[in-house]
């Protein structure tokens, strides 16, 4: 393993030092691993806190700022943060109008955020949790861990963040976040395994002509392995799995993200996007808004994920609202 780091133990804190140095708009508590907006809480504004294991950059710290998150708490690589971080973050951003925890649906994340929410409530802060679970590669069932939260997290954070920024109250912000999650689906494909700094070798082995379909964002293997295929075929399988679960109809408008897993160059992501666009156009679905790039990564894994969200005029309006963060920025 070769990584640009000083030590596997310190990689997250070293990166936080870099984020602090690069983004004067952010306040970074390196020791507690909490990133907030430099200007502090805005009284009366609903605050959004998210967090999760590191290794998915720019998620979540790259989405802290005007029109999106108020705080992010990155855990160790691929490890949910601990309740103390979430507590610190929540206290730091509470503006008296309630705090929303945006939680990707992983056993660890859910349990740690749950413990944090209990502690926060002891402080008298109103907190609501929104679970993101958009990954169609996983069967949804009450008797399992349920679907993973992946690409839709960016949509939820952007749209709920916009509503909070313009003064939406806690119930409205939570409702918007849940609506975005419900209307969004994702599917991921890996061309290579990622390598965690701590383990130092690829998490799984993949042949030179094999790919994993239905992977998550923690380097875990997917549900099935198949032979390498063209971008067109891969897009068809991925989008097919999404549409089977959440059909998009002729006349629908969609927000679509083709997201890189960290080791795949933008050139290839645009190739995939061209295929996704053609497939949806063939069904009469219009891609009204787009993200192509690395937004929810899995260390140095090569591959991509596709996320769709069925838009409404209101969701489109909130998507277009100004945002000023390290990784997403427009209109401000």
């Amino acid at each position, binding site marked *: 393993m070769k990584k640009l780091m000083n030590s596997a133990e310190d990689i997250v804190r070293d990166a936080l030092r870099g984020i602090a140095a690069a983004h004067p708009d952010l306040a970074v508590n390196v020791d507690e691993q909490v990133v907030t907006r430099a200007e502090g809480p805005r009284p009366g504004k609903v605050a959004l806190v998210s967090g999760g294991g590191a290794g998915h950059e720019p998620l979540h710290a790259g989405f802290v700022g005007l029109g999106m998150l108020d705080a992010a708490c990155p855990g160790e690589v691929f*490890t949910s943060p601990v*309740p103390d971080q979430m507590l610190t973050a929540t206290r730091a951003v509470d503006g008296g109008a309630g705090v929303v925890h945006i939680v990707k649906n992983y056993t660890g994340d859910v349990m*740690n955020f*749950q413990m944090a929410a209990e502690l926060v409530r002891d402080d008298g802060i109103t907190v609501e949790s929104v679970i993101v679970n958009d990954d169609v590669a996983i069967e949804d069932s009450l008797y399992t861990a349920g679907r993973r939260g992946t690409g839709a997290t960016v949509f939820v954070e952007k749209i709920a963040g916009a509503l909070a920024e313009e003064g939406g109250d806690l119930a409205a912000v939570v409702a918007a976040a849940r609506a975005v999650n419900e209307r969004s689906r994702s599917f991921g494909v890996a061309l290579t395994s990622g390598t965690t700094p701590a*383990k130092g070798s690829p998490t799984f082995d993949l042949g030179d002509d094999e790919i994993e379909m239905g992977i998550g964002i*923690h380097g875990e293997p997917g*549900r099935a392995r198949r032979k390498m295929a063209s971008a067109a075929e891969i897009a068809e399988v991925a989008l097919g799995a999404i549409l089977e679960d959440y059909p998009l109809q002729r006349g629908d408008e969609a927000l679509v993200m083709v997201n890189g897993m960290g080791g795949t160059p933008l050139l290839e992501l645009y190739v995939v996007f061209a295929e996704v666009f053609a497939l949806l156009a063939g069904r009469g679905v219009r891609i009204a808004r787009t993200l192509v790039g690395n937004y929810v990564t899995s260390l140095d894994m090569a591959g991509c994920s596709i996320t769709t969200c069925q838009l409404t005029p209101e969701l489109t309006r909130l998507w277009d609202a100004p945002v000023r963060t390290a990784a997403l920025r427009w209109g401000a």
Partner: protein
Amino acid sequence: MGCLTQGRALPLMDMVLDEHAARRWVAAIVAAVESHRDYLTQLDAAIGDADHGVNLQRGFSAVAAALADKPGLTPGQVLLTTGTTLVSKVGGASGPLYGTAFREAGRALGDTVAGTGEQLLAALEAALEGIRRLGSASVGDKTIVDAFSPAVTAFAEALGAGADLAAAAAAAESAADDGMHATVGLQAHKGRASYLGPRSVGHQDPGATSTALIFGALRQALVEQSA
């Protein structure tokens, strides 16, 4: 129960879970996690995200430091400190689960300075109950519960059959081991491994494996006492 043989330099006492035994237990876990770190991570790489060993090591080395700073605790406080430290240092799935387990065990022990077999059993039951409440996993889901639950049952049965603490812990260890081995054949229904569906079969669960280490450490701590 109790160790009544004489003739050694150590002051003898009834076999109980006192502060020293509790500390020995935790110290033995610290050592086991340290020496099995890469093994646990390797197991987690196959069906999870390759961090279970690293997570536990981060947690238990913090536990060792926290306990070193706090002399003169009750056994319940030893376990409570252990759990609280795990909750705030581990993260992931295992952090809240083991953290809650040790906190619940510590609470169950109350302020006793010398936990009896029945008190330790109640503590272990409270730990299991905490894990179940938080994670809603049942036996057969391929998780910590697959080793923890049979271990507690075996501990109870051995006590009921008149075994001393060390013998009951040995029975628990062996049941945890069996439960751990049995996870190989299971399909995961909880935790990250469940994402693999049928592909999770054929791999040993990392959390069940660390649970077996925890019961191995308990036996070790109590056998040392009875030796």
